[in-house]
């Protein structure tokens, strides 16, 4: 730990710097596709970072986290559909709606444990999925095309791909910093203690429910932000954004990258989406390769990629 320039620190610095420099590389090579791919990776990494806050640090195994991607995305999409394009309206609404949903879902599901918690969070997400799929005014099953990206003041222009990439990256880095502060704060210690031994937390005097619920809402808001970005990225929202397989993808990113490591989900998101991109070019059944890989991580590298890089798990 005193050896601050460990393999892990180095890998993290290289990763963070590489993501900053990526558009420069794209400029030189003209590989615009890479920019689009990595914008998507960064947006979903933000969602995975938010899931990791409750799953990795709080031990709350939410199987419906993608619901906030959908809520954030649809807040932007529906407002745009009604002719409201201002990002100063769309984004706060996206965050507030995500917070509200997380508050309701958390208030009910956090009273349960284990398998029941997994099932309830899954059930809420599927409910939202079917409700949205039934909204004919907003495209129902087919989804909703967004004709204009969120508008901010000059010179911010989300339609400029490089600019949009940097906005997403800045928000990802800010979120990572925020999560890092949170998990090491007093609040974070309560969350980690609850993951480790909730009975004991209550016995020494912590009313754990309110802390876990607050944490659940923070994670929902961050994921809602990711949803708002995703809607702007694809210029399209559809119920599939919150389908349960998407929630599964987020869990895979967290597990691959390393649960309970602040930066881990970024590694996980890059790995999963780059694998998906390259392997699906080789075979339609690319998940046949992903499956065994996940097994290996779960069986032999509990700390995920970040664990392999030598993260000392003090938390």
């Amino acid at each position, binding site marked *: 730990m005193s050896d601050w320039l460990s393999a892990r620190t180095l890998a993290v610095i290289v990763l963070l710097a590489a993501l900053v420099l990526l558009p420069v590389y794209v400029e030189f090579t003209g590989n615009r596709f890479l920019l689009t791919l990595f914008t998507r990776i960064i947006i979903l990494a933000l969602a995975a970072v938010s899931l990791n806050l409750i799953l990795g640090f709080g031990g709350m195994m939410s199987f419906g986290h993608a619901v906030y991607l959908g809520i954030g995305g649809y807040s932007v999409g529906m407002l745009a559909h009604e002719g409201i394009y201002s990002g100063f309206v769309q984004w706060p609404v996206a965050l507030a709606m995500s917070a509200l949903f997380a508050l309701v879902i958390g208030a009910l599901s956090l009273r349960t444990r284990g398998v029941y918690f997994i099932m309830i969070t899954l059930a809420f997400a599927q409910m939202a999925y079917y409700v949205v799929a039934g909204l004919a005014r907003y495209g129902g099953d087919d989804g909703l095309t967004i004709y204009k990206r969120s508008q901010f003041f000059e010179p911010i222009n989300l339609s400029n791909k490089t600019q949009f990439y940097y906005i997403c990256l800045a928000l990802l880095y800010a979120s990572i910093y925020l999560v890092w*502060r*949170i998990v*090491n*704060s*007093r*609040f*974070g*210690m*309560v969350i*980690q*203690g609850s993951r*480790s*031994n909730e*009975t*004991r*937390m*209550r*016995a*020494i*005097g*912590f*009313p754990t429910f309110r*802390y876990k619920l*607050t944490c659940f809402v923070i994670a929902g808001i961050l994921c809602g932000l990711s949803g708002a970005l995703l809607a702007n990225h694809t210029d399209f929202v559809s119920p599939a954004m919150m389908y349960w397989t998407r929630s599964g993808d987020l869990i895979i990113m967290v597990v691959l990258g390393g649960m309970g490591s602040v930066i881990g989900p970024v590694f996980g998101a890059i790995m999963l989406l780059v694998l998906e991109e390259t392997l699906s070019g080789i075979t339609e059944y690319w998940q046949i390769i992903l499956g065994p890989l996940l097994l290996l991580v779960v069986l032999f590298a509990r700390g995920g990629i970040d664990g392999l890089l030598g993260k000392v*798990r*003090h*938390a």
Partner: protein
Amino acid sequence: MPDLLQVENLAKRFGGIVATDDLSIVIPEGQLHAVIGPNGAGKTTLIAQLSGQLTPDSGRIQFAGTDITALPMPARSALGLARSFQITSLFLDLSVLDNVALAVQAHAGHSFHFWRDARREAELRDPARSALERVGLKLRENLPASALSHGEHRQLELAMALASKPRMLLLDEPMAGLGPEESARMVAMLRELKKELTILLVEHDMEAVFALADRITVLVYGRVIASGKPEEIRSNAQVRDAYLGEQEAVHA
């Protein structure tokens, strides 16, 4: 001395089994009161009701003049009633110091602080370190709790109970599973603690009980069959028949 804990006519049954049967105990401030009894006498059930983990069917529990019968665990803990677990219940994946610091934090107001690094707050770390020092775990503070031995887990339990600055400790078999040396160390530690704290001690180790207790209550099938000074308990024929004789026979 004023009474710190008053238990009146406590009763708890699980189906047909009577775990606590019309039980009354009064513990004055500063006393170490031991509760002994054969397996299944309802000792752990008693502690669970005192700490708030179980709700009694009837009866009343008063602590420091407050009726706590209906209070949940965190509220009792906030009043100064701390419990250590029979089966050690720690935060195994956190460091030894983190374990104790959490116990300090539990009594340092609410924890809705999202920004400052809790591992650098002297207000949490210093009392935690001093509690670790008192139980002799100072040098182990940076290890994960899972790396400690069984005896050290007990010491850590005690440090956590101390860190909450309790007025009264509920100790559920702190010697269980300890070797002779570790037991002796624990007895010495409890002797120090009883100078400052009121303690209710549930323990099977009779040598430790008679060495430490100011008063002893004997439970059989959830019912108090005797209560008094150690000498009185030792010479009580009923207790001998029910319990001590059998124990000593086993020990001999």
